[in-house]
């Protein structure tokens, strides 16, 4: 698996391969590193990296891992999501909210010029007996609302467009 980590502001690109015996192989800039992590009874982990052992404390959050050892102090390792933006390179793809089904607008929660945050409800549509709330895919500003309450639209019609905030 190809991974990108951020440590102290520096980017590290590695390829991680899991072995069958719990060991992992890390390839980084042409160098191969063999590593293994095992829990210790006192709550620490023993990291074995190319034969050298380190006893460390590990704490992890959603995107970061903190590694602390008495010898080296603490380091934060951030994971950079390489596929998060996959498929969004098409210009403005995320800015046009299209209708997943043909139907009618039953509520509009925003007006042109409003600042919106990702996840905020923008427009509610009804189609095939279903009420669907469309949310902002990213932070931005409402550029246009193409259909008002009561208007009908077809499949994949653009309902709302966003612009940068």
């Amino acid at each position, binding site marked *: 698996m190809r991974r990108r980590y951020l440590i102290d502001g520096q980017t590290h690109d590695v390829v991680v391969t899991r072995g069958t015996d719990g060991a992992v192989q890390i390839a980084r800039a042409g160098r191969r590193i063999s590593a293994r992590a095992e829990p210790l009874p006192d709550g620490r982990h023993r990291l074995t990296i190319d034969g050298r052992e380190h006893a460390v404390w590990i704490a992890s959050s*959603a995107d970061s891992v903190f590694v602390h050892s008495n010898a080296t102090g603490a380091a934060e390792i951030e994971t950079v*999501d390489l*596929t*998060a933006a996959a*498929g969004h390179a098409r210009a403005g793809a995320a800015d046009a909210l299209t209708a*997943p*089904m043909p139907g009618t607008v039953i509520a509009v929660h925003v007006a042109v010029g409003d600042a919106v945050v*990702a*996840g905020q409800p923008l427009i509610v549509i009804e*189609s*095939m*007996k*279903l*009420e*669907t*709330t469309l*949310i902002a895919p990213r932070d931005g500003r409402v550029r246009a609302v193409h259909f008002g309450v009561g208007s009908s639209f077809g*499949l994949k019609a653009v309902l709302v467009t966003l612009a940068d905030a």
Partner: protein
Amino acid sequence: MKRIESRIDTSSEAFRRNHEAMSAIVAKFRERMEITRHQRPAHEIKRVRNQGKLLVRERLDLLLDPGTPFLELSALAACEDYDGEVPGANVVTGLGVVSGREVLIHADDSSVKGGVWYTLTPRKLVRMLDIALENRLPVLHLCDSGGAFLEELSGVYIEGGRVFRNQCLLSKAGVPQVAMVFGHCTAGGAYIPALCDYSIIVRGTGGVFLGGPPLVKAATGEEHTADEIGGCDLHTQVSGTVDYPADSEAQAIEICREIVAQFKPAVRSFLPERDPEPPYYDPDEIHGIVSPDHKVLFDQREIIARIVDGSRFHEYQPAYGTTLVCGYAYVWGYRVGILANNGVLFSDSSKKAAHFISLCNQNRTPLLFLQNTTGYMIGRNYEMEGITKDGAKMLMAQAGSAVPKFTVITSAAFGAGYYGMCGRAWDPRFIWAWPNVHMGVMGPEQAANTLADVKIAQLRRNGHAPDETEMTQLRRRVYEKAERESNAYFATSRLWDDGLLAPTDTRNALGMALSAAAHAPIADPHYGIFRF
């Protein structure tokens, strides 16, 4: 595998309102379960005690390994039939652990009318035995029933036969069965212990006979006590119909546990591939995501995030056919391929489903259907595009699947979408509905309007022009009937599912179901003709 990024605002008004409504629905469901399991009239409990018998739940406590989960099936069967007076259709069925082995259990509940069979009783037993056949799970029978209810004979006749037929097929497939005879096994019921590999009978209370004392007296004039014509000593010493005598129910259960302990260990067709990890997002938040109104759509990724390991999900074709979400995740370490409705099924979503289902069959990944469907898209444009034949592709791939399929209905199950998404008729290994679910051929509003229009036209033809109030009343009557019959309790009462499930219990139920399904080998995938 990447974690789903939840978009739910748990501080929003909509979340709070949903949470309150869903929590009330779930609380009501748990209350009905509690009543069905434990509430019995005092005189019935006294009768069971006077016979020197244990109640069915007490027997299960002795039989099941302490501290292990018991996944009860169709606990609320018959809850909306027979005026709600036959709890669980007088029988408890479920998946549990006995002597370390996963087994299915059939336990008669004799606390109501002596545990007689109503029409839904053999239907519930046949479903449990079908699960045993499909998953190759051993079955333990705890027999204590007065036989067929005399007022339900015609309903019991055909389906009752299938109980015994399924027992024969289980034996033929090499799946062991054990019967414990605590009460009477009369007429057809006598075949239950007779068709098992092992049987145990309790001296004094247990009896096995094709015809009980009253029937024998009527037919031949012979007068015998139950013990004389089919008791413990007769069957374990003379006829050889039953294998082991026991002096008490507890002793019979111990003998059964010892028999199960020496079953050959199961050979599993798939195993967990990762260490299990609890969902990152709190499953209780499902209550705030799902609207009690099945017409309000929610993102099923939010549900997936609260069921699967680490809330991690690899979405397949994220930009194509977006009204059906497909992808891989892990549940209790088991890899699953998930199909979840996020709107109406179109041609693209149907083709995506057919493709994803064949992928999962090819790589031996069990399928999980998360249903919230109002059906396939209708209209001239969509017919021109081939919506019907694309839906047919989805059905063909789904029905031809060799991997185990599991279905959870999260909100709506209407129209042919219920078929495509592996409804009851499509043999999912297990199918559950949440207590908020609405289902049926069409929605109550559509049914009411269509039927009312037909009736009004009929009245007009007969020379009676209904006035406004009459028409409103007619509509309301049809609507109320359709609404009642689209209710989750109506469906579970008739065994349309394997029981209702609280949303927060879904993950655990799936874990048990996956482990159970691994007992059966997986055949090579092959399909019928796809219409291209």
